[in-house]
């Protein structure tokens, strides 16, 4: 088992990588989009975003000035144990990672009211940005693995979690997701997007499935439903930064959880920006 110092160091480095690095499948997705994009201005935007990713990786600096709120998913194997001490070490590693990146100091101080209306002032420390609650799930592998995703504000404004009456027809739900996505991507301004979708029985479950979809998703492998959503949104001609073109969406990552006997499905859609999911992963067990 790793000791506290080892966990802190690994989490710190994982957060810096999440905020500064495209995984290989994302780089490949951009290369494919650049090769097929027919609008010269859209192609220029795609090339510039990829150049930015190369520069950020080289400098180990933020991909975007909205460096994001850390969202953590912890996978725990059958023979592994997570202790409160380990969670504290993960939290400290996140704080050190935010300082090292450096993350944007955008934590709001003060009591409940001050934090709502932003009258409590900004914490000048990058580590003043608290991570979201940690989501924990089981894995068949005999490991403890941490995924860190850095979520920006723009996609949060345009994301939506709501009920859909499915009418006993999957296509009805897909149509609704496509309609939501077209509106969201058009307003975002930071396309091409990666659409993250979770379908569950409650708002909490749908949101957690959306997070897991981003952890499990690959730009190199799309299910039929994911490919259909991507294709239909791309037909809308929104394009990179809304400048029109063939590449409004790079891919869709969707996770469908258990469902209840009911006419309703709860759908969570996050139109991740051109840099997200800004994910990196690390094993915290030896």
């Amino acid at each position, binding site marked *: 088992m790793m000791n506290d110092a080892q966990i802190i160091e690994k989490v710190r480095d994982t957060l810096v990588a999440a905020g*500064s690095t495209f995984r290989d499948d994302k780089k490949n997705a951009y290369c494919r989009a650049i090769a097929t994009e027919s609008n*010269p*201005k859209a192609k*220029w*935007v795609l090339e*510039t*975003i990829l*150049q*930015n*990713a190369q*520069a*950020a990786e080289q*400098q180990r*600096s*933020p*991909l*975007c*000035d*909205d*460096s994001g709120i850390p969202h953590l998913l912890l996978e725990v194997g059958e023979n592994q144990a997570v202790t409160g001490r380990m969670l504290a070490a993960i939290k400290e590693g996140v704080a050190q990672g935010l300082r090292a*990146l*450096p*993350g*944007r*100091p*955008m934590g709001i101080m003060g009591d409940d009211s001050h934090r709502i209306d*932003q009258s409590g*002032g*900004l914490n*000048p420390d*990058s580590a003043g940005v608290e991570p979201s609650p940690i989501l924990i799930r089981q894995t068949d592998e005999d490991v403890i693995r941490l995924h860190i995703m850095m979520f920006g*504000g*723009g996609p949060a*404004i345009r994301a939506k979690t709501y009920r859909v009456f499915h009418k006993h027809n999957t296509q009805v739900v897909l149509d609704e997701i496509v309609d939501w996505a077209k509106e969201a991507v*058009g*307003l*975002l*301004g*930071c396309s091409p997007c990666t659409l993250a979708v979770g379908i569950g029985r409650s708002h909490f479950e749908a949101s957690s499935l959306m997070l897991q979809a981003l952890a499990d998703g690959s730009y190199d492998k799309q299910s039929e439903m994911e490919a259909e959503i991507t294709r239909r949104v791309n037909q809308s001609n929104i394009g990179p*930064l*809304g*400048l*029109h073109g063939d590449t409004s969406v790079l891919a869709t990552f969707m996770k469908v959880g258990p469902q209840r006997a009911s006419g309703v499905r709860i759908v969570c859609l996050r139109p991740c*920006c*051109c*840099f997200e999911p800004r994910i990196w992963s690390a094993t915290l067990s030896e």
Partner: protein
Amino acid sequence: MEQVIEITTPIADEVIDGLQVGDMVYLSGEILCGRDGVLPKIVKMAEEGRLDELNANLTGSVIFHTAVSPAGVGPTSSNKLEIEASIAPLSQAGVKLHLGKGAIHPETVQALDQYHAVYAIIPPVTALLGAKTSEQELVAFPELGMEALYRLKVDRYPAIIGAAHGRSIYDE
């Protein structure tokens, strides 16, 4: 790549005359940076005739809709309520180019035309913009932290004209 127009601040009216929606530009010189927190305060100063108290000349200026922090700079959505509401009054006060991202409303596009200003879209490429930024100065409202008014000296920031002369790239 098509021809890119070089623009240096302060921007003259004749430069605005020649810009069209879809033009690719490089911006150089001193630019101001502000977003949700500070722009309404500057609008209020303009309405009260107190812009002379601001340590910045808005005539011919560029306002980049961004925070300025150790993480760098990058556009936030210009269609956020308080940001978009600043575009018309600050254009009236002399700002010539508003730099951000995202579609803006038709009435804002018309106001830009009325006050002889334009809106430009900049890709959110923080790592690249860092290498093109040589100086950074806090201008006003330091209590707003990263949302205060800043002045940057920049070299060839890339952008695309998104709204000019009553037209918007998002409507085409």
